[in-house]
């Protein structure tokens, strides 16, 4: 008798949980306004890209055209697939000492896996990932970028 009771309660419980699942999907079917699909090219103007998304590596410059890169080369060493090449040059500063400064910061977008090890390991917070994602170009050569702007200098520590 107990077995029969267990069987029947199991049956009704099963039916109830199945109906519960169907009510969830049924709700979604009858509320098409809640559809989450983004229709990308049409909604470009209102598209919301989150800050944390990693589109491409950038080196922020301030309004005086200064960056924070000291050309230490840690990012180049830590990059697992040779995406970054830091080319430095030696310059004389005001005191007459020769000092290593950044000449060209080469970033190859086509090789990047967006692991962000470079950003995490940068001791001076010089580089960051930007959420730009429309990076398609017609030739691969265009994917090799120089991140420091022309004539930019190292930002003085305040």
């Amino acid at each position: 008798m107990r077995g029969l009771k267990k069987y029947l309660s199991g049956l009704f419980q099963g039916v109830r949980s199945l109906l519960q699942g169907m009510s969830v999907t049924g709700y979604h079917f009858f509320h098409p306004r809640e559809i989450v699909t983004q229709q990308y090219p049409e909604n470009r103007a209102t598209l919301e890209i989150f800050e944390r998304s990693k589109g491409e590596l950038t080196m922020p410059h301030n309004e005086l055209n200064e960056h924070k890169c000291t050309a230490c080369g840690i990012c180049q060493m830590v990059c697992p697939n040779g995406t970054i090449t830091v080319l430095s040059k030696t310059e004389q500063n005001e005191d007459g000492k020769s000092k290593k400064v950044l000449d060209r910061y080469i970033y190859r977008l086509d090789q990047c896996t967006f692991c962000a090890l470079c950003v995490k390991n940068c001791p001076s917070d010089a580089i960051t990932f930007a959420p730009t994602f429309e990076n398609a170009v017609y030739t691969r050569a265009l994917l090799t970028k120089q991140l420091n702007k022309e004539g930019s200098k190292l930002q003085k520590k305040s």
Partner: protein
Amino acid sequence: MIYDFSKLTSSLDQLLLSVLPPFWVLLVEALLVLIAGLAAFAVLGMILVYMERKVCAFFQVRLGPNRVGKWGTLQLIADMLKLLTKELVTPRGVDVLLYNVAPFIIIMAAFLSFGALPFARGLHAIDFNIGVFYLMAVSSLAVLGILLGGWASNNKYTVIGAMRSGAQVVSYELSVGLTYITMVAFAGTMQLSGIVEAQADGWFLFKGHLPALIAFVVFLIASTAEANRGPFDLAEAESELIAGYHTEYSGLRFAFFYLAEYLNMFIGAAIAATLFLGGWMPLHIGSWEAFNAVMDFIPPIVWFFGKTFLLVWVTMWFKWTFPRLRIDQLLTLEWKYLMPVSFFNLLLMTVIILLGWHF
């Protein structure tokens, strides 16, 4: 009796008889039915595939096809053209004859059941006096195509898929048969046109109340399983068996399997609509003459397809809600739940008929 196709069909028959000997009349009529059926298959297949993609998308909070044509309506034309132009690959090591025959068997099984469905009064290819029995027999032929296709492909995934499908169809055939018997006992006839006519004063789902409702639910579940549709689609479980029994098929042969799946779903829904929701019979409520007359104005074809597509939608609802069953769960559901419930239900129905406790 506004819409009666039997006049049209019998006048066509008379016209043919006046110009041809009886044997040729039969042949020409069979050919006409074949052409109409094939056209209906193609159109229904396309509507069902489009419906499936859209309905599935809406259940999953997506939009579905929306790029090719307005609301993606031309997507199916594009898909069809793609399937038609694909190469028919015959892998090395397959049993060439069986491999080629399997898709035709499966589509033929669907066609055989299609021929016995009453679409409207008089619009009925063959009205057997044992229509329900016939449907029960031919609707289980599709598994032959699946078994043959799976075996002839000479591939472990296809064989596993085919074997699962065999176990599944053999099991669920029992509940389907028992629900058929329940409704036949209630209707008192096996003739499909007779069953539909008997529902003129109320559909069986309402007239037979509790046992009819139980039979309806059991039939919906079991016919979904018989058509190898999700959540019972473990014959083609793509996460474990690639595509199950049709892994090795491509192009038009694959399209046949694909089409047959949707048509079997449609046929299951059409049989459920005929047995429980009155087939092409408009919604009639007892003695509300005015209401019944208004309902009669809607053509029976609209009623039939409306009910069928409603049930198709319900089976899609199943598919896109429930996760796929494991093979042991599948057999447990049938042998420990659906079959005892249908036996009990048959008993209940018999008692209700004998005591006259129905409407």
